[in-house]
């Protein structure tokens, strides 16, 4: 059967999106594949479709439990029953059941932690898998933002077993990360698909301020005068709340968003934004994962993000509908120092290494540090992993090295705030690609007429009013 027919039969689409077909064909040729596709561009189809043609189960390793749950639910909505999430949420008896019937599933989702359990490994090694998928593969790279040590361990497991093709998926990665993925997973001359990172409909603005106070003034003025929907990215929770409050005071429909709010509140804000009840979200980098709003017109960074990958991912949330959109990076003197402070704040230090050993000497489990709030969860994960592999001195050297790498990443981002060259060319070049064509209003350095992109904000947007409880109850249950 032609791939297109399978696509229509199981998914109801008539054509592939860029990259999907190339990736799937490579899998059928039994090649390992590294596919870099942006979020919302149909990454998961690259393994879902093969799942229906290969007569063997597809194993998907996914580091984020919530993401895994989303993917399982999505498949179930399409009517797929032979799908299971083998993770720590299962009870002992559920797990026993799932393991017993494992070969009967078409899609098996699991976490790196689970994959390291002996009984899971034993079961998998007796089975014939059709494909192994490593989702969010950039987590494998210790240079990545969310490094997962357990991912390194699965790399070791991969090299032991007689395995089917491996498909490594990620939304963001540089050459360096791609190299890490290839080496760590011991991929065999993989086929690499890298999407075009350039987004020609997003115009790249940049504004430099001498004084921080001017920045505040500029932001308030800009948001008052130009139309959303937009996202304002901030470097801290506190700042997000302050700006949000100021914009609300100015009569702009705004909400703050960060990981400190409860899950319900976060979902309410996302939904309000998608439904058009809010024009601006003032957020930390916690905002964006899984948001699907095609008509975001502006993304403004109040200060530079930690690295170019994050910057591209965040600005890429604008203009998914293909219509013109604007990304503006703001810079004032010393922003890079703040960025450096923030990126290393999450790293374990030499002091943490000593403390870890001290606790071990006292026969206390080192996770006590985490419980005491002495360091973040990510930091503990990194520390715990390396101290089981290497000596204290080696780990200290490694941590130093990590901090330097993070500084270097900030420096590269800093260059984007300073360059006099075409910003688009620089950004695309960072990902090892060549810019083929410059769009109109390309970037700050090539020249932008802001008034050609920004629409004037319509004053007096309808503020949502509360209605009496009886009416709200009817609306909720009956839809009227």
């Amino acid at each position, binding site marked *: 059967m032609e791939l297109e027919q399978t696509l229509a039969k199981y998914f109801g689409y008539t054509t592939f999106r860029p990259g999907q077909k190339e990736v799937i064909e490579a899998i059928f040729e039994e090649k390992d594949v590294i596919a870099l596709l942006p979020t919302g561009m149909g990454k998961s189809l690259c393994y879902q479709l093969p799942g229906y043609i290969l007569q063997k189960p597809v194993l998907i390793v996914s580091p984020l439990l919530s993401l895994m749950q989303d993917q399982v639910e999505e498949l179930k909505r399409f009517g797929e029953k032979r799908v299971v999430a083998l993770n720590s949420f299962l009870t002992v008896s559920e797990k026993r059941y799932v393991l017993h019937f494992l070969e009967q599933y078409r899609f098996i989702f699991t976490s790196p932690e689970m994959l390291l359990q002996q009984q899971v490994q034993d079961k998998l090694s007796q089975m014939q898998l059709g494909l192994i998928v490593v989702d969010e593969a950039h987590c494998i790279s210790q240079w990545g933002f969310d490094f997962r040590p357990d991912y390194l361990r699965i790399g070791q497991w991969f090299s032991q077993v007689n395995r089917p093709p491996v498909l490594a998926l990620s939304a963001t990665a540089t050459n360096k990360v791609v190299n890490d993925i290839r080496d760590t997973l011991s991929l065999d001359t993989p086929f690499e698909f890298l999407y075009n990172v350039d987004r020609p409909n997003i115009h790249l603005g940049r504004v430099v301020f001498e004084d921080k106070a001017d920045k505040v003034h500029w932001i308030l003025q800009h948001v008052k005068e130009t139309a959303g929907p937009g996202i304002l990215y901030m470097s801290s929770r506190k700042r997000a709340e302050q700006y949000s409050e100021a914009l609300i005071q100015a009569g702009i429909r705004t909400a703050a968003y960060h990981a400190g709010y409860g*899950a*319900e509140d976060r979902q*309410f*804000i996302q939904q309000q934004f998608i439904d058009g009840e809010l024009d601006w979200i003032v957020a930390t980098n916690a905002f964006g994962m899984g948001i699907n709003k095609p008509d975001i017109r502006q993304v403004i960074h109040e200060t530079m993000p930690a690295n170019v990958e994050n910057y591209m991912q965040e600005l890429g949330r604008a203009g998914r509908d293909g219509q013109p959109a604007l990304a503006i990076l703001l810079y004032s003197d010393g922003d890079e120092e703040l960025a450096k402070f923030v990126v290393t704040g999450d790293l374990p230090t030499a002091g943490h290494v000593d403390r870890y050993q001290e606790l071990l000497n006292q026969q206390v489990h080192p996770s006590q540090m985490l419980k005491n709030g002495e360091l973040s969860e990510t930091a503990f994960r990194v520390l715990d992993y390396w101290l089981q592999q290497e000596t204290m001195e080696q780990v200290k050297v490694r941590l130093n090295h990590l901090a330097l790498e993070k500084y270097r990443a900030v420096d590269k981002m800093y260059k984007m705030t300073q360059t006099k060259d075409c910003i688009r060319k620089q950004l695309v070049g960072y990902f090892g690609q060549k810019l083929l064509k410059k769009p109109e209003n390309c970037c700050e350095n090539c020249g932008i007429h802001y008034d050609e992109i920004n629409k004037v904000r319509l004053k007096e947007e309808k503020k949502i009013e509360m209605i009496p*409880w009886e009416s*709200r*109850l009817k609306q909720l249950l009956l*839809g009227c």
Partner: protein
Amino acid sequence: MFHQILLQIFQKLNNERTISAAYHVLRGKRSGQTIQDIGLFQLHNYFGLLPKLPRKTFDEAVSTFLQYSWLIMQESGHYSMKKLGLQRADQTSDFLFDGWHYRGNEHVFFARFSLIVQSLSYQSAGVRTFSPISRDTAIQSWVRTFLVEHNYQDGHIQQRLLEECERVLAVLPLSEANKQLVLYRLSGHSLPGWTWQQLASERKETVLDCQLAFIELLHTLLNEVHQTNDYPLLGEVAEGLRVKALLTDSAQQTAHLYEQGYSIEQIVQIRKLKQSTIEDHLVELAMNEPNFSIGPFVSYEEAEKVWQASKHYQTKKLKTLHEVVEGMSYFQLRLVLAKGEV
């Protein structure tokens, strides 16, 4: 609202505890001391209202009280209410919390309820996919079973649930604004809920006060649903959430024997425990069980005397009462105090 609640607790604790005792009550601390305070000072309503209350928030409220001269602190950590504070406490109306019987389970009720409403809202709109407001798999599977059992696909359950909700909200003796508040913590298709922040600024109060008003409404609603059998669907959603087993296991066994008619002495022999232990159990029973009568141990006149003395001397200290009310044992005094004034 938070300040009023705190002031009421301080008033009830009657200057006989440290300020931390109030904190433990609100956080629902399960220590012997706190549980005993609940009974002695009749603080059941407030128990465990805010299990995650940060100490900082609590301390800030206390310093406000000090600033307003509502109370003064002693070095021991004890406090004394001042006239202004007592007046203030008397001015506030009583709240309808029932922390003792729900202990945070109101949030389980609401998680189930919001997921049911969200599912039905999307179903009414003909939209099959949405991201569930509750990520908790236990809640999700509970709701799935509930919906399937009620044949939600035939579309009648919406009408029935609407009718029950309208009826129950109409009878609750709470403000329209608070009923509205709870409705805006629900979401549905094209009807996002409001965040605590948004609700607080609309109501011109703090987030904490919004959350307390929300909890009060849920407690009141749950009690209405549990006390009558008039709300079959809501009754199911609330099933198992009212805490019944208030007693420790050992006290439960003593209670069982006592209900069968055994005397204290017989229970001591059967259970091979000290008399004082059995007496502790009976005090616990008196504290928790509304139907437990202290009549077999204390006459009405004796109880009356204890109450009058307690009022007269403004104390619930056993030692003081033992001195001023003649001829009563500590056990009898504790029973009277545990039972509370009739």
